[in-house]
């Protein structure tokens, strides 16, 4: 291999939302700063293709692999292949299923984060003193993240049966116009919907459009405000929180996760022992803790950068 420079393979399963775009960018910048070469590949949610990418990386004799798989089970052969080639592997944001293969995972607890964010909104709902009809925008049913976020949502609202009733579960297939149409139709069927959770902030523009059309786009405190919970912590989500249009948002700590991932690779290369699972607790940002927590929210940092220039 080229003397001196080491190569890290960065294998993502897609760049479908700003979270991943920002994530890969931070990792890329950081690695470059540390003098690594990068071999990038996107699997487009095809675990088989990603397995082939891992083998290509091994053939290329990379010095470490940062991977985002689609399926926690299907990635295990790839880990084994990396183990056999003695190349350290770190999972960014999604852990693999338990197995005897060795790799390090950085995990954001989607379900917990979703639950916490939604719990805040449920409390808001309960305090309002009336019962709210709720809609959830569910992600692609083949995507485990989407499933975990949905489950977190269901757990939270399950604790407030008299404040929140789920009347619409809208499948979006992670598809903007399906989401828009689905929410519009749900609002048509249930004009009283006043509680919305989206499994990803990337649907914010469509939700905005649908709520505006139904005359439900109003800030907190207004009669026709819809209690709105996001997930991911996008810049747009911060913007809405700031404008009092969103009540809470589940935030994955992107900076922390990228930092953990790169550190883990370095430690593994140096032969240190590293925990198999490094947790990003994530957090729910709410109207209550917005000021104190916003610096930890990656979306805020990007938002600040954008709105500065």
């Amino acid at each position, binding site marked *: 291999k080229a003397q001196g420079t080491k190569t890290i393979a960065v294998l993502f399963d*897609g*760049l*479908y*939302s*700003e979270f991943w*775009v920002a994530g890969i960018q931070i990792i890329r910048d950081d690695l470059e700063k540390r003098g690594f070469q990068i071999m990038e590949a996107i699997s487009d949610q095809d675990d088989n293709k990603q397995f082939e990418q891992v083998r290509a990386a091994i053939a290329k004799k990379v010095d470490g692999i940062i991977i985002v798989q689609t399926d926690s089970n299907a990635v295990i052969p790839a880990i084994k292949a990396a183990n056999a080639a003695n190349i350290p592997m770190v999972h960014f944001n999604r852990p693999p299923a338990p197995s005897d293969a060795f790799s390090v995972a950085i995990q954001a607890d989607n379900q917990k984060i979703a639950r916490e964010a939604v719990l805040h909104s449920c409390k808001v709902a309960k305090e309002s003193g009336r019962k709210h009809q709720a809609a959830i925008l*569910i992600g692609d*049913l083949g995507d485990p993240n989407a499933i975990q976020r949905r489950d977190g949502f269901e757990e939270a609202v399950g604790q407030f049966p008299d404040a929140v009733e789920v*009347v*619409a*579960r*809208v*499948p979006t297939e*992670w*598809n*903007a*116009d*399906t*989401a*828009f*149409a*689905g929410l*519009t*139709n*749900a609002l*048509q*069927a*249930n004009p009283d919907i006043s509680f919305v959770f989206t499994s990803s902030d*990337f649907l*914010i*523009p*469509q939700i*905005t*459009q649908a709520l*505006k*059309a139904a005359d439900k786009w109003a800030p907190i405190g207004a009669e026709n405000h819809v209690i709105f919970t996001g997930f991911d912590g996008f810049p747009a989500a911060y913007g809405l929180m700031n404008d009092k249009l969103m009540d809470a948002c589940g935030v994955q700590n992107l900076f922390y996760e990228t930092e953990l991932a790169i550190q883990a690779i370095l430690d593994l290369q140096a032969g240190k022992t590293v925990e198999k699972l490094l947790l990003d607790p994530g957090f729910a940002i709410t109207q209550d803790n917005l000021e104190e927590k916003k610096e930890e929210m990656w979306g805020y940092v990007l938002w600040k950068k954008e709105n500065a220039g």
Partner: protein
Amino acid sequence: MKIGSRLLLLLLQNAPYVLFVVLLVAFGLMSDRFLAVANFRNIIIQAAPIAILAIGMTFVLLIAHIDLSVGASMYLTASVLALYFTGVPWPVGLAAVAVGGAMIGLVNGLVVTRLGVASFIVTLAMLFILRGIAMWLSNTRMLMFPDAITDLNRTALLGIPSAILAFLVVFALAWVVLHQTPFGRQVYAVGEDPEAARKAGLPVERITLACFVIAGLCAGIGGFVTISQIGAVGPKYGDQVEFAAIAASVLGGVSLFGGRGSVAGTVFGAILIKTVQNGLNIINADPYIYPLVTAAIIFLAVAIDGLRTRILERLEQRTIRPLSEA
């Protein structure tokens, strides 16, 4: 002919509409919100983009070609609009995506006619290329559109929402072009038999080219209506809509082998598909069954159509001797 078989004939001839009515009744029974005027307006608004796209697709299908690139074309033109036409008034934006779409259609058409490559492959390759370019330009980020465009979604003219208006205009134009202009009739002739059309002195290449341009144009316009509704585009934007557009056309009776069908059927097909999705939303169906129900209904509609053609052929078969004698 007997009353019974005449009734059967009538039913068969209108089979897709019968299916539609059955669906309406079924959803209506399951939710009292379904059969509301506002909801039908919703359905048509939601069907508008796909209907516009499918109208363009119909032109290409009529000449026995196919365009798999319309979704990618939508994504690319929308990305260019968001990136390089920020702050323009919406008519300029609309013109930009329409012209952009038409130019992509022109490229498709030129490769098909000049180089003689099968349109399936040309437009499949274009799907990749256009999507790739759009991702490159946008750096796979979500692109937002200004209020000037997103507000259109809530604008109405003479009480007609803008999406429905756009759809009506495109539909009316397409209908007139196909049925009342020389070009339209020649499209049907080329679709039936390109070799015969060439021998009859028709400019087959020019007509083919024009159909691809129209498909591209409609992709641009349909895309514009979509972005006015959803307000932002990401890398999944326009994914697989070519299949929805083809399904809408075929549901409406357009033949994949050229020469048969009409835009009226296509529009009906688009509305049928959106009605199913709307109905499932309205009755809050289990998310897992959406694709199952949608696929089953597309399947059913086309199956009925196939059976219908077969039975109609039999019923309308040439007879050599009067039937009453037999």
